[in-house]
């Protein structure tokens, strides 16, 4: 379907697609098999200016918005979710600086991010703080002109690979949710180290590690926003990034769908290509329809955000939950359409199916997303009845 993209948006799509097809598709199986971080591909993305897509022009970026980012993420995801997770998590980690960073922080970090010289990671999750972000135990205590950070972040995408980390820690436990603050910490800061790399079911090209803070001292200026704004920073960041996860869903579903169609045209059973059987056609029809619906929603919400909407929690949660549920279903069905071949590693769909699962889990499980949507509905209804 034609989404009436601008010439520049089409240019972004074509470039991301070219990189995906020429640089990612040929190596994705190996990256998955060996769990190798794709340094070369990150270099290519950097040279192609894709890291600067959503960074303002004054900081060396291209000044584009959420939709352009969604388009790029979708194309990379169509080839490999492991790679696109690395790329999307970079954006996630950058949002706290973009949305709440001081001028000095922006000047200091954004140009390197835009140029792809440094990757960014976002550190919120902990062993006891997953869906319940209130369970955070990492602390940041002000001592003179420095914050002293202690604690361990878990399952952090780009951990160890990123040069810049935006993390959430508790500055005043007595204030509850208003006692958390966001910080930027650079790799190499004394007292900041990484745990082992996780061995994951999918998105194996992406790096996932613990971030370990042991009396890690950062200058007072490294706080993002003000003390106590940590949860606001985290929630607004997630509001913006969720559509990106949605576009990951659209991309991986599209990739699996195309593989399934291609296979179904070639595979002959009972003397006919299996695509001529209605049972297969109906599956493909449902897959194609749900992908288009997911894409339409992701693009619409992205445009809504780019238009400057204030509160986008509900809409971005809807885009995330819908598109990622579609991704799981479509990749599973792609394996089904391809039968035994789909289950084998010779074809990419089994990887896509394994990869897709994370989309329903990370950046807020789909259950949490539904909570967000539900609470927004209650709020809206209450307002309407006032």
């Amino acid at each position, binding site marked *: 379907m034609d989404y009436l993209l601008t010439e520049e948006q089409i*240019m972004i799509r074509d*470039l991301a697609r*070219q*990189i995906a097809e020429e*640089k990612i598709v040929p190596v994705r199986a190996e990256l998955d098999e060996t769990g190798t971080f794709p340094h070369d591909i990150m270099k290519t993305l950097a040279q192609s*200016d894709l890291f*600067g897509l959503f960074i303002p022009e004054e900081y060396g970026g*291209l000044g584009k918005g959420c939709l352009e980012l969604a388009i790029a993420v979708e194309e990379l995801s169509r080839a490999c979710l492991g790679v696109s997770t690395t790329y999307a998590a970079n954006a996630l980690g950058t949002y706290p600086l973009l949305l709440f960073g001081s001028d000095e922080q922006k000047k200091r970090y954004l140009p390197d991010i835009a140029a792809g010289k440094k990757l960014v990671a976002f550190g919120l999750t902990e062993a006891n703080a997953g869906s319940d972000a209130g369970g955070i135990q990492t602390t940041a205590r002000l001592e003179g002109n420095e914050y002293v950070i202690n604690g361990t972040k878990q399952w952090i995408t780009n951990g160890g690979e990123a040069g810049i980390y935006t993390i959430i820690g508790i500055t005043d436990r007595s204030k509850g949710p208003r006692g958390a603050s966001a910080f930027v910490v650079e790799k190499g800061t004394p007292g900041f180290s990484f745990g082992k790399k996780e061995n994951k079911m999918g998105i194996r090209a992406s790096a996932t590690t613990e971030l370990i803070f042991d009396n890690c001292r950062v200058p007072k200026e490294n706080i993002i926003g003000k003390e106590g704004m940590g949860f606001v920073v985290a929630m607004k960041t997630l509001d913006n990034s969720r559509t990106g996860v949605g576009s990951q869903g659209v991309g991986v579903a599209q990739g699996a769908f195309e593989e399934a169609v291609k296979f179904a045209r070639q595979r002959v059973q009972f003397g006919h290509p299996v695509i001529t059987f209605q049972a297969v056609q109906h599956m493909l029809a449902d897959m194609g329809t749900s992908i288009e619906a997911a894409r339409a929603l992701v693009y619409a919400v992205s445009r809504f955000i780019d238009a400057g909407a204030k509160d986008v929690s509900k809409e971005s949660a809807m885009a995330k939950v819908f598109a990622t549920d579609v991704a799981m279903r479509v990749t599973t069905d792609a394996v089904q359409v391809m039968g035994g071949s789909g289950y084998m590693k010779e074809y990419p769909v089994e990887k896509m199916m394994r990869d897709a699962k994370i989309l329903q889990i990370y950046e807020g499980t789909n259950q949490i997303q539904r909570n967000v949507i539900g609470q927004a509905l209650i709020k809206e209804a209450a307002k309407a009845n006032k």
Partner: protein
Amino acid sequence: MKIVVCVKQVPDTAEVRINPETNTLIRDGVESIINPYDMHAIEAGLQIREKTGGKVTVLTMGPPQAENALREAISMGVDDAVLLTDRSFAGSDTWATAYALSKAIEHLGADVILCGKQAIDGDTAQVGPEIAEFLDIPHIAYIRKIEDVKEGRIVVQRLMDEGYDLMESSLPVLLTVVRELNVPRMPSLKGKMAAKKAGIKKLTAADIGAEESKLGLRGSPTQVRNIFAPEAKRDRKIIDGTNEEIIDALVKELTGLKCL
């Protein structure tokens, strides 16, 4: 350092076929691309510029639609693009093509001229060395590595059948390059945006001061008399059975033919 890269827009030849019954071309949906070897020449030009400074100009001779190839080169980061286009170039063979390109290069000026080792449509590999001859400068073909380049001197590796030669040349020089030389970079977004807006400089036969008698068909010593489909015929024997049976049968046949 002034670097000129010569490129050619070619049909993606893997897709071109001939219909043996009608002796006509089947080229439905065949895309035009930058000759793949020329992509390596562009990359080499950009890498030399990164090292020595200077300017990379990409030059093509062709019809107006060859502009697309030039814009693609701009999106990779070349500074300038020149389209050499004139009706009088019609029917040029390699001799006349090389003559016209050499006049254009004379007009532009160059210290290093880079070409792909050959174009995939014609596969002649002649235009590069012929340009060098017309310009009366040295050339080295089949470059697989550029070891060193500085004012007035270049050291390269030339690919040969059984290895390579380490070669040195004075500048200006023309080099034709092979795939092993480098991996062409992807275009960048800023490059693509610049490419859309960039002005393409157009040169005609008159602009470069070319002699008309050396252009196009009149200037071409060779002519294409006809084209036809290649033959492929041989009696084949399919060997069937289980893998073990197949291998026994094959080894028996080959032994019988004294192949082993």
